[in-house]
C-alpha cells in the first residue's frame, strides 16, 4: 500500500475539513458533510468487524441503541448530553457484548443471519415498547448543552458546532481504530480473517478477538447514534432499520476495504453525497444508484479507494502507451 501517499492525503483532507465551514456557508451542504462523518464512523465499524472475517448486518441496530439511549438519558433522566453521550456509548457496548457471546458460536453465514435478526428485533423493540415512542419515535430532542471555555463558548444553535463535533468524533474513531490495526491486535485480526483455523492453531483465541472487534465496533457505532439523536433532534425506528444496515455495507465495501479507514471514508463521502448531487427524480434514483453499485462491484474489486490508489499507475501507463505511438 502506498503508505507515504496515504499520510499526505490524510493531512490535506484534515486541513480541508477544518476550514470547510468557512468556505461552505450553505447549511444544507454542511449538514451533508456532517452526515458524511457520521456514516464514516458507521462504515468504519463495519470494516472493523469485517477485518476479522465477519460480515454484520446489524450495525444500524446499535446505531439506534446509542441514539435512543442517549435521548432517554437526557429527556427522562435529565442527564447532560455530555454525560449521556459516553454513558449511552458504553451501554451500546454492553448490549453488543451480550449479543456477542451468542454470535461467536456461529461464525460465517450464521453470523450474518443472526445480526440481521438483531436488526429486525431491535427495530421492533423501538416500535412496540412504549418508552421509545412507537412508529413516530421521539421528537424535540434537545441539542447538546453549550460548552463554556475561557475564550469561547460553543452553543449548538447553528450547524457549525455540530460539524466540528462530528468531525472530532470521526477523528477519534479513526485514530482509535488505526491504533488497534497497527498493533499486534490488528495483526491477530488479519490472521483470523486470512485463515481462522490456522490462527487458532498457532495460539490465537479466535472467538475472543472476534468478540472484541464486535464490541469495539458496536460501541463506536453507538457513539455515532448518540450524536445523531441530538443533531437531528428527532429519531424514529425506521431510520435504524435494515435499509441503513445495507447502506453501511455499501459505504464500506464499495468504498473499498483494502484500507479499513480510508475505504469506509471514501464510500461514505461518495454515497452520502452522490444521491444528493444527481438530482434525479425519486422514482428512478434507486435504479441509477443500483446500477452504479453493480458497475463498481464488477469493475472495481478494490472499491473506490482501491481504484483511487491505482489511478496514478493507470494514468502513467496510458501516458507511456500514448507516448510510444
Amino acid at each position, binding site marked *: 500500500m502506498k503508505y507515504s501517499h496515504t499520510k499526505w492525503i490524510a493531512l490535506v483532507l484534515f486541513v480541508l475539513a477544518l476550514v470547510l465551514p468557512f468556505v461552505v456557508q450553505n447549511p444544507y451542504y454542511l449538514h451533508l458533510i456532517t452526515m458524511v462523518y457520521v456514516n464514516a464512523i458507521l462504515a468504519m465499524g463495519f470494516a472493523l468487524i469485517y477485518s476479522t472475517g465477519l460480515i454484520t448486518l446489524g450495525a444500524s441496530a446499535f446505531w439506534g441503541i446509542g441514539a435512543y439511549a442517549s435521548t432517554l438519558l437526557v429527556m427522562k433522566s435529565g442527564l447532560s448530553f455530555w454525560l449521556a453521550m459516553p454513558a449511552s456509548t458504553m451501554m451500546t457496548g454492553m448490549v453488543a457484548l451480550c449479543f456477542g457471546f451468542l454470535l461467536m458460536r456461529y461464525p460465517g453465514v450464521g453470523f450474518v443471519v443472526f445480526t440481521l435478526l438483531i436488526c429486525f428485533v431491535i427495530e421492533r423493540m423501538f416500535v412496540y415498547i412504549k418508552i421509545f415512542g412507537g412508529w413516530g419515535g421521539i421528537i424535540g430532542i434537545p441539542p447538546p448543552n453549550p460548552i463554556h471555555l475561557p475564550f469561547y463558548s460553543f452553543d449548538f444553535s447553528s450547524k457549525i458546532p455540530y460539524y466540528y463535533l462530528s468531525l472530532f468524533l470521526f477523528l477519534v474513531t479513526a485514530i482509535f481504530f488505526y491504533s488497534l490495526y497497527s*498493533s*499486534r491486535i490488528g495483526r491477530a485480526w*488479519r*490472521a483470523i480473517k*486470512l485463515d481462522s483455523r490456522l490462527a487458532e*492453531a498457532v*495460539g490465537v*483465541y479466535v472467538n475472543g478477538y472476534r468478540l472484541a472487534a464486535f464490541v469495539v465496533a458496536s460501541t463506536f457505532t453507538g457513539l455515532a447514534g448518540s450524536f445523531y439523536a441530538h443533531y437531528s433532534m428527532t429519531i424514529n425506528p425506521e431510520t435504524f432499520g435494515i435499509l441503513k444496515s445495507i447502506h453501511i455495507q455499501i459505504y464500506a465495501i464499495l468504498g473499498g476495504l483494502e484500507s479499513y479507514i480510508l475505504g469506509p471514508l471514501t464510500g461514505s463521502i461518495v454515497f452520502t453525497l452522490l444521491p444528493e448531487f444527481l438530482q434525479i427524480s425519486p422514482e428512478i434514483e434507486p435504479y441509477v444508484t443500483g446500477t452504479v453499485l453493480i458497475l463498481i462491484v464488477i469493475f472495481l474489486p478494490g472499491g473506490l479507494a482501491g481504484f483511487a490508489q491505482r489511478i496514478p499507475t493507470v494514468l502513467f501507463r496510458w501516458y507511456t502507451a500514448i507516448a510510444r505511438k
Partner: protein
Amino acid sequence: MALLKVEKLSKFFGGLNALTELELDVFHSEILGIIGPNGAGKTTLFNLITGFLAPTSGRIIFEGEDIAGLRTDQITRRGVTRTFQTSILYMQATCFENVLMGYHMHYRQPKWKAFLHTRAAYEEESVAKRKAIEILEFMGLAQLKDELASNLPHGQQRALGICIALATAPKLLLLDEPATGMNPKETAGLMKQIKKLRDRDITIVLVEHNMRAIMNLCDRIVVLNYGEKIAEGSPQEIRGNTQVIEAYLGKEY
C-alpha cells in the same frame, strides 16, 4: 514418564470407527513415526491431540494434564503444535508475516500497552520480528521472507508451514506428512532439519508415507491400520513385521 500419553482413545463418526481404543506413548526428545495406509486414522489422531476434534472417549495426557476437548489455541499454548497435510498458510501474506503470526502466544505485554504503542510493546515486537527471521533462516527460507506465501513452490510452502509451527516454540511438534511433494534433495534437507529440531529439545511425532525418511529419522515407529495400532517398535522390528508388510509396506521391503 511419557511426555504425551494417549489412553484408550476412540473417535467414532456415526458409522465410521476412525480410532478404536488407541494407546500410545511419546517420550521426551524422541522422534516417533506413525505410519499406516490412508484412512488408518493418522490425521484423525493429530486432530484429536490438537483439539480440532473432541474424542468420543479416552484421554490425552500431555505433561500430566488431560488436554482432550480443550480448544486448539489452548493446546498450542501448552506446547503442542502441528503442521497440516495440505498447505495451510496465510496465502496473501508474506513469508515473514506468516511466521511472525506464529509468535502471537508469546507476547507478555498487556494488550492495552500494545494498543497505545508503548516502548515496551514496541520492543517486544522487535524481539518477535528477530525470532521470525531466525526461524526463516533455520529452515532456509530467509531470502524469501518478503515473498507472498501463495507464490512459493509446494515444497517451500511445506517448509513455511513448519516455520510457523516453530514460531510457537512447541515442546511437542506433530508433523503431518511434511515431505509430501518434495523432491529427494528437499526431502534430505528436511530430514536434516528435523534432526536439528530434536537437538533443540523438541519432541517430534512424524506422520509420513516416505519410508526412507521414516526409517532414517525415527527412533520408534507405530503402525496404524483401520484405527487400531497393529505394531510398535524400532525401525528394524517394523521392517521385519509381517503384519505390517501385509497391510502397508509391500513386498520389496
